[in-house]
């Protein structure tokens, strides 16, 4: 049964702001500007910009209604593997907004921002200590940016050795995040895949065979994207170093080992840390991120500027020109990095402390293994043995059911869950990657497990393929036509493309 408005109780159909505006409405009250002589070089903007006019209540209603069309960590289990959808404490948000922290200008005189520099230095200290690494570059804006930073420092170290032209190969497993090959390629490296063994880890013998005087680095995620710890990692690092290459560790999964294992003890040369994954800065619908990179002694001289220097009880920032020492790769970003994210991450870190962070890793790993144990008889684990922070299944359990990984995931939406990560890593057929994180209560995990068991059994019954294909049925939208979106891209609203349904 449809409704007159198209609304479904709490689900309100919402137009675009451009379809709502009225000239003469404005949601801010600003004073009349004083009259001054125009100094715009004759370039005053003529004509309408085209922005709609709304009042404040309309704006609040609009974005509130939109918010109600989103799933979120605050609503429940969000088991998106590899993305680490852990609880985002509101204390982090509060301290990031304190006057004297949230409102500082990055170019204020350094004497007026001593507390901010100390804060950055304190987070840097935690990151170095937790990873067992001697240096950290704080400025990268996100994990992928941190990867770029780390690989640039490797290029710089090779250049300093006079071997950059010779070492053009970067080794990466086929299970790697897409950013790894993209980063390496943009720096002029050729990416060569290294095979996995039947246990889902790097095949050490194959790696050793691939290492040679042409190899610049290996890019390896650990725990890897299959949710497994690379148990031969120390031998891998040794082999890489013996061949004169560097070890880039993708730290996306540091959350699984924080407080229990220091990557510095494993032989890595650099590793980015996604602050949102390990240290709970909000995912925010896709950013902003922050991707500090810890560096070994070999790479530390090439860290990008700026960095904070402690001189006794004072802090200063080495940012440009003669304040900078070593052989830095250069500047990666305006100003000093994602300071607002540093504040949030440090609040999370201080709240947990060394004892709590260890517990975080343990609970995350325990929860993932619990899910694995509770589902392994109805779904098909991709590998044997314990996993780390995420449980990986392949689509073997859906074979001949007419239900695909995608259908299974969409059916989870109707059960009130965000789906797991699908079809990644690429090395596992129809992959379903479940990461519960440390943030879920056992009773919530139990309900989630029961729901997945029910779905798996329904899929295997063979009688409900059509129902799966039709899912989701209860979400704000049914399945969307992504082919149409890509074939005829509509990337902006124009008066002419006001949607027909909205005009009715």
């Amino acid at each position: 049964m449809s409704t007159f408005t198209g609304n479904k109780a709490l689900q309100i159909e919402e137009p675009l702001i451009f379809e709502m505006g009225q000239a003469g409405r404005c949601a801010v009250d600003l004073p009349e500007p004083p009259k001054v002589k125009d100094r715009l070089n004759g370039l005053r903007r003529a004509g309408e910009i085209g922005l709609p006019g709304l009042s404040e209540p309309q704006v609040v209603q609009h974005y509130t209604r939109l918010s109600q069309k989103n799933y979120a960590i605050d609503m429940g289990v969000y088991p998106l593997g590899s993305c680490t959808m852990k609880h985002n404490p509101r204390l982090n948000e509060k301290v990031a907004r304190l006057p004297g922290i949230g409102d500082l200008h990055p170019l204020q005189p350094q004497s007026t921002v001593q507390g901010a520099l100390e804060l950055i230095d304190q987070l840097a200290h935690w990151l170095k200590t937790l990873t067992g690494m001697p240096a950290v570059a704080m400025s990268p804006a996100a994990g992928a940016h941190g990867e770029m930073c780390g690989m640039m420092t490797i290029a710089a170290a090779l250049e300093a050795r006079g071997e950059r032209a010779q070492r053009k190969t970067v080794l990466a497993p086929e299970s790697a995040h897409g950013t790894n090959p993209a980063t390496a390629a943009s720096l002029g490296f050729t990416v060569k895949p290294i095979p996995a063994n039947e246990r889902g880890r790097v095949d050490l013998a194959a790696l050793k065979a691939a290492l040679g005087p042409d190899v610049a680095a290996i890019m390896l995620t650990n725990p890897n994207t299959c949710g497994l710890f690379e148990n031969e990692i120390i031998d891998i690092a040794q082999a890489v170093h013996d061949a004169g290459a560097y070890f880039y560790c993708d730290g996306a999964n540091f959350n699984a080992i924080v407080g229990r294992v220091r990557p510095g003890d494993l032989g890595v040369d650099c590793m980015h840390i996604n602050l949102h994954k390990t240290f709970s800065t909000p995912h925010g619908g896709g950013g902003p991120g922050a991707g500090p990179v810890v560096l070994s002694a070999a790479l530390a001289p090439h860290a990008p500027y700026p960095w904070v220097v402690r001189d006794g009880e004072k802090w200063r920032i080495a940012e440009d020109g003669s304040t900078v020492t070593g052989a830095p790769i250069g500047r990666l970003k305006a100003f000093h990095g994602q300071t607002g994210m540093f504040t949030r991450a440090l609040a999370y870190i201080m709240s947990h402390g060394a004892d709590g962070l260890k517990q975080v890793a343990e609970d995350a790993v325990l929860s993932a293994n619990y899910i694995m144990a509770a589902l392994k008889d109805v779904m098909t684990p991709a590998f044997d043995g314990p996993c780390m922070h995420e449980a990986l299944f392949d689509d073997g359990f859906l074979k001949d059911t007419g239900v695909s990984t995608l259908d299974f995931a969409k059916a989870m939406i109707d059960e009130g869950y965000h789906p797991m990560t699908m079809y990644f890593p690429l090395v596992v057929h129809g992959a379903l990657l479940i990461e519960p994180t440390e943030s879920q209560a056992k009773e919530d995990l139990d309900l989630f497990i029961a729901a997945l068991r029910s779905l798996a059994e329904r899929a295997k019954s063979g009688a409900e393929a059509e129902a799966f294909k039709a899912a989701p049925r209860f979400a704000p939208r049914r399945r969307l036509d992504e082919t149409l979106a890509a074939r005829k891209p509509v990337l902006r609203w124009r008066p002419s493309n006001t949607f027909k349904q909205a005009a009715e």
Partner: protein
Amino acid sequence: MRYLPLTDVDRRDMLARIGAKSVDELFRDVPQSARLGAKVAGLPDHQGELEVERAFQAFAAKNVSPAVAPFFIGAGAYRHHVPATVDYMIQRGEFLTSYTPYQPEITQGTLQYLFEFQTQVTLLTGMEVANASMYDGSTGAAEAVLMANRVTRRHKALISGGLHPHYRGVIQTAARWEGFSAQVGTPDVDGLEDLIAGIDKETSCVVMQNPSFFGHVRDFAKLADACHAAGALLIVVVTEVVSLGLIKPPGEMGADIVVCEGQSIGNGLGFGGPYVGLFATKEKYMRQMPGRLVGETVDADGKRGFVLTLSTREQHIRREKATSNICTNAGLCALAFTVHLTLLGEAGLRRLAELNHAKASQLADLLAAVPGVKVLNQSFFNEFTVRLPKPAAPVVEALASKRILAGVPVSRLIPDDPAVANLLLLAATETATDAGMAPLVAGLKEVL
């Protein structure tokens, strides 16, 4: 520990279900030599909310908040009033704690605001298409150069001496390690630089900023023509996005790619980040853009909906052949931008821009009357450069000791160049008051 729901009883039951004796067993793949027996040494243990909050208040107490001092600092980050609604809206958990909208059926909220954001960016810049945001303006500028190199299949960028020095630095870093040439002009203090003479058949793009780092407002239509005649693209950077409420948009002057720092709208200063990069271009270059794009489509019931689209450009599909390694955008900062700009609307943005220009004009006139101070700009929006009779850095420090945040000595961003040592860059936004300008003028008179 307040964030961890599992109890010891839960943990015991879960281990039993797994069939493990202890959690250590689950870590058995970690080489023995790397297993820490105890917690990491040398770090404090957990703390309650009260203690953590106190620690941050102690950090804050060691800083001078712009809220309590006359404030005239800009240079790529601007202090504006952000309406209360913006901060409330971005802290709604449905926005704050959602992720990249991989499942469009349950992320229409994020997708629709990003579609609105993309549209707002095209309108502001006068361009045809925009992406769903970049990390910030500086990284966006480097991505724009890489995109121009892809489009033109050339590898030489010409960089204006009026471009923000940090942006120039970010482009130079990309040039050095990603393998292209970046020719950089000398600091364009007077706003009279001629970039046309430097363009040749190898030039992939010219990168200029408007208003420039030194504040000058330039008509670059002829520069755009010269770029196009030579087969190069014109990249226009805008670090103060509010200026687009008053100044002719780059799209109307022939820009091919426009990159803006969007911080001024919706986003606080935050000591330098996170901010939000705006990235807009012409439709014909759409498939060469970096970053996420949101497009309109329909669902199985024929209802309008939005999805991430053209992802075949991106790293998770194309891997080593991607247009960029970027996977996140500045989602929540983009939301802040969109909510604030929606609150402003056409009338509000125009008035805000007028107000900024008027405040800066008042400040320029006041400073021009201070003996020894020379205002260098004929044109500006809300920021301009003055020449002092002595080096600007110690003057700024001396004023800071009087709790006046006077501006940015150009030497902080362009060090080791005697030609700019006496230059001071000052900005006045709608937050500037007569009561704040008076101590600045008095303080300058004293210090000079």
